[in-house]
């Protein structure tokens, strides 16, 4: 069972208190967007073997959504950060690159 640190309060949260929310940093394609854009937005998800940016909600707790960068192979958690952002913070990207030199980076 995973442990994730809440980026708002610093509380360590056990997985049973959390709800997973899938891939983070999706761009919402609403009215006026093309079929391809909408299809990608609604249905196509990254499924990396390695570094993954994902959404979690502390459902049985503060109710806050946050993001986590986690390795899908080893479950190493590189960091968590607030959800009010469109891309991972630079400090986290730097940290992951230092730990995983082969990582191709965000995007």
């Amino acid at each position, binding site marked *: 069972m995973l*442990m994730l640190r809440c980026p708002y309060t610093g509380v360590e949260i*056990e997985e049973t208190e959390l709800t997973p929310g899938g891939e983070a940093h999706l761009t919402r394609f609403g*009215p006026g967007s093309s*079929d391809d854009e*909408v299809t990608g937005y*609604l249905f196509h998800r990254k499924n990396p073997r390695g570094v993954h940016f994902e959404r979690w909600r502390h459902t049985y707790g503060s109710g806050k959504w946050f993001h986590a960068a986690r390795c899908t192979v080893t479950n190493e958690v590189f960091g968590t950060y607030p*959800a009010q952002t469109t891309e991972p913070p630079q400090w986290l990207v730097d940290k992951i690159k230092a730990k995983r030199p082969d990582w191709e980076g965000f995007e």
Partner: protein
Amino acid sequence: MSRRLDTGGALIDRDAPVQFSFNGETLRGFEGDTLASALLANNKVLVGRSFKYHRPRGIVASGAEEPNALMGVGEGARFEPNQRATTTELFQGLVATSQNHWPSLNTDVGALNAWVADMIPVFSAGFYYKTFLFPRVAWKHVYEPFIRKAAGLGKAPVNPDPDDYEHFHAHVDTLIVGGGIAGLDAARAAGARGEHVLLVEQTAHWGGRALVDGGDVAALVAELEAMPNVQMRTRAMGAGVYDHGYALVYERVSDHRPGLPGAPRHRLWRVRARQIVVATGAIERPLTFANNDMPGVMLASAVRDYIRLYGVLPGKKAVVYANNDDAYRTAIALHEAGAKVKAVLDVRAAPAGELVEQVRALGIDIRPGTGIAKARGGKTVEDVEIGTIAGDRMTGRDEHLICDLVAMSGGWSPVVHLWSHCGGKLLWNAEGAFFHPDPARPPLGEDGEGFVSCAGAANGEGLDAAVEPHWFTPSRGKYAHGTKHFVDFQNDVTAADVRLAAREGYESVEHTKRYTTLGMATDQGKTSNINGLALLAGELGAEIPDVGTTTFRPPYTPISMGAITGAAKGPLFKAVRQTPIHGWSDANGADWEPVGDWYRPYRYKRGSETRHQSVTREVLNARQNVGMLDASTLGKIVVKGPDAGKFLDLIYTNMMSTLKPGRCRYGLMCTENGFLFDDGVVVRTGEDEFLCHTTSGGSDRVHGHLEEWLQTEWWDLKVYTANVTDQWAQIAVAGPKARAVLEAAGCDVDLSAEALKFMSYVEGTLAGCPVRIFRISFSGELSYEIATPAGRGLELWEALAAAGAEHGIMPYGTEALHVMRAEKGFIMIGDETDGTVTPQDLDLGWAVSKKKADFLGKRAQERDDLVRAGRKQLVGLRTENPDEVLPDGAHAVKRVREHVAMETIGHVTSTYFSPTLGHSIAMALVNDGLSRDGEWLDFPVAKDKVMRAQIVSPVFYDPEGEKQNV
């Protein structure tokens, strides 16, 4: 002859005799015995029958790895099958019964299976897949009953479990699993570093093999007990290791003292540890020779355990058969206990070393290069045929040794289960012939560093001295005819089965496991896995590490369902949400129905009414007089802030920002995929405040949905949401006399049709309670939904019931609610929707804004698949026979046909008998339904029955809405 020795037995208390029974016979043992040691002390060498062949079986091991001695233990509600005799502590009055035999352990009819198996190849590898193919009809009448009768180990208990169980959460720096020397040493080291340590041991004693093979742990245990930061538990097994330092420990608190007051039977520790040290020791492997499953053939270490720990000598005349030095300790122990050691048979050509010399000095015959060609006997071993091992053949003089005990040792395997549960990798030690943890590839924690390490024998330490790998001892003559070399005792898997699987193409050890059942069931192959995969590797011509092991999964040994459940049973299994009116309903005939986490009255029973009679009465009374409904379960979410209207415009398909304060609007919510997921009435309670009603089961889901979009997409909007469902009691008063009832109850607001119009809202006082009155209707009648603070809910309910008495008011339940909404053609989320239905499919396009630039689901609703022809759309149905009600979920078919699959064109989503209209009504989702008005559909509802129904408007009652607008 197995018996109790006059002296010795480190764990038993000879001053404390204990009576127990085995298959109805009263026997005696001592406090400190296990059921296994006590049975052996009473010369019960035959303790069970095997799973497939019903062969006689005896005790093989002395610990958790025991494959054979599975017992039913206890009686009545406390009966439990498949308990290992070797880990069951003896107590006064213990009742044990053996398994897998009929009519009795000594005379078993099923043993015929074994005799048949020698003639034709039933029960060999994959026999289930090969044997029962034809003829087809035989499945139902012959094969399946036979397989069902034969399948499964033991009998399931039939009564509810009377015992208590509990969970216990612990957060520690270091969890150490295993209380042998290695675990105790690790605990001392961690304790001295000031860490918070939890040390657990699965048996009742500290010391592990040191208790048998030497070493005093008393001082070490005392030292640990004096450390305040070290917590120690015996009878507590490390059951599993999971992600990020999570571990389960299974503590058997009172198995050895059943019914102990105040104590749970089992306690499941849910541990979060920064580091876990696995010091779980090693398990000895059997040797694979012909008839090695005969009672009296035991692991060498177990023989030593029974002598030294329990003062039990399992045989008078013994043969030791080994491929390593360690087993010589057993020869010495047997000799010292007074047994005649006929010989030590050693597969190695030139055994040497200190232990070997000790045995030689005792005058015991050591036979190098020798193996057992075959054990012989019946319900116990009587002699062994020995010979010289020459590769895959048995040669030399045909010699027999008379014996009643064979102590075998094929070397030791580290217990790497807990290391492996969460991804720790293994290395093969070719010299010692075992897998051990690879310290370079441990399970990783959240920081990317290893969080599990192994110590002592679990780490492979001390196991690689003087072992010669030996995986199969051939017998004389033609292989596998009339002899069985067992690999897995519990599942009756032989070496021939493993080899057959390899020849048939099962190259993966995981496939071989499933094909042969090697390593399955309660022992999960603790004694058989390594032997089995070595045989597989041999047959495939591959190296053992290349074949690999099967996956180690928790729990290490079976844990009770009770422990997993903990306290969450009976009323604590699931919390029931109760409205403030719950108690009143319960006292007034409520027939409860679960709705989400709530319980709601299905109907209020009067006298000896049937359900149908109650529902009919409640519907007609609401239509003709007035009814009242506890609607408190309705979800209520406050959305407040300067951007509240803008936010709700994005959440709902229709426009909410234009709603005037004091007005109500029915709204639909879709997911971003365009599908309808909740509905309800939105009320503008202030300039920047809205109250959103949701479905009864949906308030948490909807609130989560609002928060998700607010926090993760539109975090710039100035909006707060709060789920206030429990803060308000809500009562619907519906029917032609509803206004009269409210007025009779005493209301300080003008309730006239002109002052409080349909779909409007007002605050005031009703029957002395502060209320919010919503003039909305889910029944189609003149209707008020009245909310009051939850604490006043019951008071208001009773006041309305009293005031309504003269108008014939009656409470109605959820079924009457459903019937009335269906009569009006109102949809119900979860009935008419299933996550693939759009508002347009339900002819609710009028509630989907064309003007708004954006809302959740808008773009998706333009996708090809959501606008195509042929989608299922909502229709009303009237049956040909008005008295017949269509079954819920019944399918309409394009053409009724016999013996072939029919093409379905739609299905019934709601179906009732309408007391108001006097005929049955239904709603259905039918392909292109909105343009098929008047068509007749066929519903084949049973083999010989087709119901016909005509498509009509789903609004069956008062289509003009005159009743609710008065």
